[in-house]
């Protein structure tokens, strides 16, 4: 069975500082990897995803994540955060088989930006 670990439940960061949100997964097969974001009082939105190809994927708002197969990690990074990045971030995996494409989520990391 697949699982996802987000070690940091809360991460406070000063505005314009860099941030890394950690995600590790375990699976017996190859996986697809996702980061979802939940802004205050809003629903879950896809931030970025890794399916295949380049191990570095980027979002439109400056976040990036790198798939590292040897370390089974998919850490999320941003070189300079803004107040608007305050949200909860969820790492998720799914297994690329036909059938149920359920997402297995980590417990989330609450990112707080300090002005």
């Amino acid at each position, binding site marked *: 069975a697949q699982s996802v670990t987000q070690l940091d439940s809360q991460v406070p960061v000063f505005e314009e500082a860099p941030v890394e949100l950690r995600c590790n997964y375990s699976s017996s097969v190859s996986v*697809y990897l996702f980061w979802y974001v939940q802004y205050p009082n809003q*629903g*879950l939105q*896809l931030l970025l995803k890794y399916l295949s190809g380049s191990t570095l994927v980027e979002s439109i708002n400056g976040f990036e994540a790198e798939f590292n197969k040897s370390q089974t990690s998919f850490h999320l990074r941003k070189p300079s955060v803004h107040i608007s990045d305050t949200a909860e971030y969820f790492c*998720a995996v799914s297994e690329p088989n036909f059938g149920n*494409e*359920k*997402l297995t989520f980590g417990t989330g990391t609450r990112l707080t930006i300090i002005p």
Partner: protein
Amino acid sequence: GAGVSQSPSNKVTEKGKDVELRCDPISGHTALYWYRQSLGQGLEFLIYFQGNSAPDKSGLPSDRFSAERTGGSVSTLTIQRTQQEDSAVYLCASSSSYLKTDEQYFGPGTRLTVT
């Protein structure tokens, strides 16, 4: 266009009562998922519908939980004889096909409180 909608947005019920939660997926999306977001458990998969195929109910926590999807569109999640541990936010998501590359779009959720 319209996103995934869920109703009610909030539901408070007494222990032992039955509740029904509704999900309207994005028009044309064939795959529909229910997840539960609760303190201490994070986001958990509950059930998956794909077209006319038999649903994958492997995530339902007990036989008090059931779901149906009528006409391949609207879905209802029913919880019978609610317990306090059922208190959570219930999320519905839909995607356009069974291909894993298709993004799951989440609704705003129904916050269920069992008193």
